[in-house]
């Protein structure tokens, strides 16, 4: 059992990891063909994985309804929402799903009038939360925090047209803050992260890191 759960996945990770790492350096047609095949596999797996995702979602909500756990009523909406959308998607404006996608169907209407405004509403909550978080936590407690606060105010004003109306220098200073000190700090984090990424990849390829297979070591 351990052979199938540990050894085989590690052999696959080793072989594929090395192959794909070296593929980057080999421009030959056979290398390109290998990449083509592997990416196709990946796309097929991704496609099938969507069914696993859908199964997980429905299975979880079905069990919530069955066991009447707290808030089970919300799970009914998952089935109603998904059911209506799937039915109209398959109906395809009366032409059914085996024909080409029709324009202006009920499916499109649901998308435009339910999903789009609902999604945009949730995103807009961010502005409220940001304002609240900024008010409660953004304090000039010490020298560094004061510099941060001044920089934040300049960038906030420099990123909207009103900044130009106050002073034409505000957007210039805001751009400088973004392009120089901000970029320097971000690049340092990025380099650290990239080194971490390479080290993790090497550990996985050589089977040193196995936690992703589950069960500690």
């Amino acid at each position: 059992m351990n052979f199938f759960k540990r050894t085989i996945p590690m052999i696959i990770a080793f072989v594929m990891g090395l192959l794909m790492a070296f593929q980057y350096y080999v421009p030959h047609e056979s290398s390109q063909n290998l990449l083509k095949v592997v990416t196709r596999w990946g796309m097929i797996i991704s496609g099938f994985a969507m069914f696993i995702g859908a199964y997980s979602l429905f299975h979880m909500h079905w069990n919530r309804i069955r066991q009447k756990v707290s808030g089970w009523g919300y799970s009914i909406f998952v089935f109603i929402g998904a059911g209506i959308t799937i039915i109209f998607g398959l109906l395809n404006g009366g032409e059914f799903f085996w024909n080409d996608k029709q324009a202006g169907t009920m499916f499109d209407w649901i998308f435009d009038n339910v999903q789009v405004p609902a999604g945009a509403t949730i995103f807009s909550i961010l502005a409220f939360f940001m304002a609240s978080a900024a008010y409660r936590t953004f304090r000039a407690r010490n020298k560094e925090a004061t510099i941060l606060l001044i920089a934040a105010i300049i960038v906030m004003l420099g990123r909207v047209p009103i900044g130009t109306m106050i002073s034409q220098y505000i957007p210039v200073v805001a751009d400088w803050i973004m392009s120089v000190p901000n970029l320097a700090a971000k690049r340092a984090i990025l380099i650290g992260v990239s080194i971490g990424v390479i080290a993790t990849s090497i550990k996985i390829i050589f089977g040193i890191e196995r936690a992703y297979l589950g069960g500690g070591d």
Partner: protein
Amino acid sequence: MIKLFITFVFSILILSCTSTAFAMGGGKSEFQAFDTPNDSGKSITLRWPSSPGESDHVEYVVYASTTKNGPFETEALRIKSNDMYEEGSDSSYHLAVVETDKLFNKEASDNGSSIEYFFKLVKVSNLDSTSIGVIASATPKGNWFNSSRLNNFIILIIFSILTLCCIKHAKKVPGLFIRKIKGLDAIDDALGRATEMGKPALFVHGLNDMDSISTIAAINILGRIALRVAEYDTPLKVSNIYPIVLSVSQEVVKESYLEAGRPDAYVEDNVFLAASEQFPYVVALSGIMTREKPAANFFVGYFYAESLILSETGAATGAIQIAATDAFTQLPFFITTCDYTLMGEELYAASAYLSREPLLLGSLRAQDIIKGVLIGVIIFGAILATCGVDFISSIFRPG
């Protein structure tokens, strides 16, 4: 072993230099065709000297044939005469790449690598057309190594060897020093609190798929957390946005419960797909946080605009919150609203820190050494660049 490695790298270096020299060689005034270096064997590079009177109104047209005597009827290239100058030639040469697989019918292009292609250069103006060069020919060949990526390859090999050496060394000399990471030390406290309160712990995956290393790092941390959770007998809820991450997470958590000797405690529905889109995912998780009030929330992986909404909702429910992300734009939000935040590469060090396994800790030393070398190179390069020497930047030029 080291000798073999040096010979290997050295031979690649020589090969790449000779191929480039060969490619760029030849007469100074002639129309040349040669196999494009570092390609898959489906293109030929054409090079010819520029001439006086080049302008928008004068064009160069290249015709191709598979026989020396023609007919030259297939147009392979048409450019304005003042365009496509060779980089670094000070506009004295034109350089263009012709993709041979698009020139003739499918049968010819299927055997493309063995065919010799002949090209004829014609200069066309409004008044006349003049064949200005002799016919040039070349056969495209696929290359087995992209010499322009040699620098990248050498760095990869050095880094890999260094990492493996450090791991080997760590095996011999255990007890490597690793600085305290408060956020990771707090995991046990958070899980302990959840156990005491009889509430679940919530592990939230970031928004990247399995092809992102930050997601793999998150899975590694999940494995460690799941093991402890199984020992504590606390429910662990794991939310996912991608089905592949879901499958891997289910497997990891299940294995951890098995290893802890508690396979019966594993509940499949506790590792679930919350939604497949960004903000529906946020809504689903906010709902779970508000209704079930988990005692500990872990936000691990790469996050985007949803980070603040998630962590602010979690903070409102009074949960202990630990975030680990390499998404630097989201760090301020997590720092403001979470109790502990692992920044950048700490995410990748977490697995080693939690397990204290010498092999994993060894790789952290390699990371530190590489970082030190890079800092040195950056400082040295900045000084040289300030003095007008771009030696370092040419070494690190991407291919």
